[in-house]
């Protein structure tokens, strides 16, 4: 009986740990994504300003915004495509408008395609780091400050940075 109890306790502990592991998978997944570029999830932490040498490679970066469902916003980058050199800092302005009659908060969720490029795109400043509150009918200029690092795989010549824009006023 004693031997049973010891073993049972260990096995129960193992299953409790595995239950906890399921939840630990959530942060692990983010790390995993960052390392492998899975799902094109770029980091949501501000990066340091580029200290890298500006290389001569030319990369086309397109900006895409997707208003999720019925979110009452319009968000547009101007221009929608820029050509950048890895290592150099780039500044892009997005114009966001709240087209509803109420004050609203939006959250932009970035996604990079091809996913492998995500870990090489460093955002020094991004409106996606925080929620953006926009008053009824107002428009706001949103800033994106980023650079690509020199480790960007050679086969990547163009990439898309997409923002899914959610209305999170309720929550």
């Amino acid at each position, binding site marked *: 009986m004693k031997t049973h109890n010891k073993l049972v306790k260990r096995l129960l502990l193992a299953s409790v740990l*595995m239950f906890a592991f*399921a939840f630990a998978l959530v942060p692990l*997944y983010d790390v995993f994504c960052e390392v492998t570029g899975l799902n094109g999830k770029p980091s949501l932490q501000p990066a340091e300003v580029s200290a890298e040498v500006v290389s001569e490679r030319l990369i086309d970066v397109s900006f895409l915004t997707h208003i999720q469902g019925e979110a009452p916003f319009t968000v547009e980058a101007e221009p929608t495509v820029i050509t950048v050199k890895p290592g150099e800092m780039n500044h892009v302005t997005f114009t966001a408008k709240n087209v509803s009659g109420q004050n609203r908060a939006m959250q932009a969720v970035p996604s990079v395609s091809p996913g492998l490029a995500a870990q090489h795109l460093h955002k020094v400043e991004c409106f996606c780091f925080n929620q953006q509150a926009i008053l009824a009918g107002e428009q706001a200029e949103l800033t994106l400050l980023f650079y690509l690092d020199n480790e960007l795989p050679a086969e990547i010549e163009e990439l898309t940075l997409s923002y*899914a824009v959610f209305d999170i006023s309720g929550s």
Partner: protein
Amino acid sequence: MTDSVDNNQEPGEPKSADKSYAAGVKRWLYTTNHKDIGTLYLGFSLLMLLIGGSMAMVIRAELFQPGLQLIEPNFFNQMTTVHGLIMVFGAVMPAFVGLANWMIPLMIGAPDMALPRMNNWSFWILPFAFTMLLSSLFMPGGGPNFGWTFYAPLSTTYSNNNTALFVFSVHIMGISSIMGAINVIVTIINLRAPGMTWMKMPMFVWTWFITAFLLIAVMPVLAGTVTMVLTDKYFGTSFFNAAGGGDPVMFQHIFWFFGHPEVYIMILPAFGIISTIIPAFSRKKLFGYHSMVYATASIALLSFIVWAHHMFTTGMPLAAELFFMYSTMLISVPTGVKVFNWVATMWRGSISFEVPMLFAVAFIVLFTIGGFSGLMLAITPADFQYHDTYFVVAHFHYVLVTGALFSIMAGVYFWLPKWTGFMFDIRLAKTHFWLSLVSVNVLFFPMHFVGLAGMPRRIPDYALQFADFNAIISLGGFAFGLSQLLFVWAVIKCFKGGDTVPDKVWDGAEGLEWQVASPAPYHTFSTPPEVK
């Protein structure tokens, strides 16, 4: 031959003189006897097989012809979802647990399972889980309709309000499985008869031992996943909601981290059963026992690093796709070893074809077909074409129906005479086998064709080019469904009576379970046997 232990006890239905258990319903409610609980599990899984099977009949009836005839799409989705859940968690898994309960103590010379009370609980919470799941079908809003894989956000933001019932029933199923697994592990580690060393353990015990560890490793992960679904849906968390920083694809990673080992949970005990039956009717020892054990263990280990092959189309980076393709292909090596060993066991044996052997041979051929389509599915570029089509449906039904289910039936026919003391009606059982064999292939083989031709899975209606094959598939389905009634009949008939059998029912069978009387007495191996 018959140095049976405790075989002075009366076989069959217990006599009223035996005071070791209560009479009537109480016997079953309070029982802590591994044989009673094994019977309960097996009876329950048979009931679930019939319920899940009738849902499959509804699905096939709707798909018999193009157009919507019988049910509307939402109900169709509930049918596919609940069919999957019932078959996986209600039919296949409890059947294996039932066989484990019945046979593991007999095979290792233990008097009972190590934790008999927990054994009772782990069974009796199951009916509640499935009542809860099935009752949601009749509630306003309906049952779960997001597929047994319950991908978020279809199962969170976009599901009906009965999702909580689904979540709790999965929780209970998980708790039941974990308790069952703990019981199996403790029994095997602590209660083996003297002399029963690890490498003398029967293959069925080995495969269950490894399966039990898989269960403890992944069922809690499933519980965690459904808990996240629950909190996402009802408590405003956003594990799987991009707006709140979550990620719907993460759901699939966590789910399949459970889901792929789960697939092996449903097939490893089957390997054990087949490895028991093939030598018995080839009258030759299992070829490569050691490599069989290692192969089983390596399949179990590999099953933890292949999960993302279920989600190649979610858009992974190339490196990840390559990794999961290679690791998945690798699984076919130990699986191949198993098949080769079975064939080598039969080679130059003295083979006879009793019903369990018929099912076992059918298992080898048809499971291998399922294995081949599995290998094809592992090839990422080709998987883009196969994924979420009927090709996948064909694949997993070959491994789960002609694999897991056939092995369970082989096992039941193999041990049924030991349980009841009577030989089953052989003609009836053979009819059941041949009808099942033919109809199951009519049912599932054309699914490969419609899948390759482009028919997605989980659709209630389809384009006209798939019509002919779907009609054939449905006819095969009805035939297969009806054939299983013969199985029910054969089993019931065998409990009622028949030719009495000797202790060693099959002349080529080996193992401690054949040393006890037929039918197996209520208490066996009260004094442990000596294993040489």
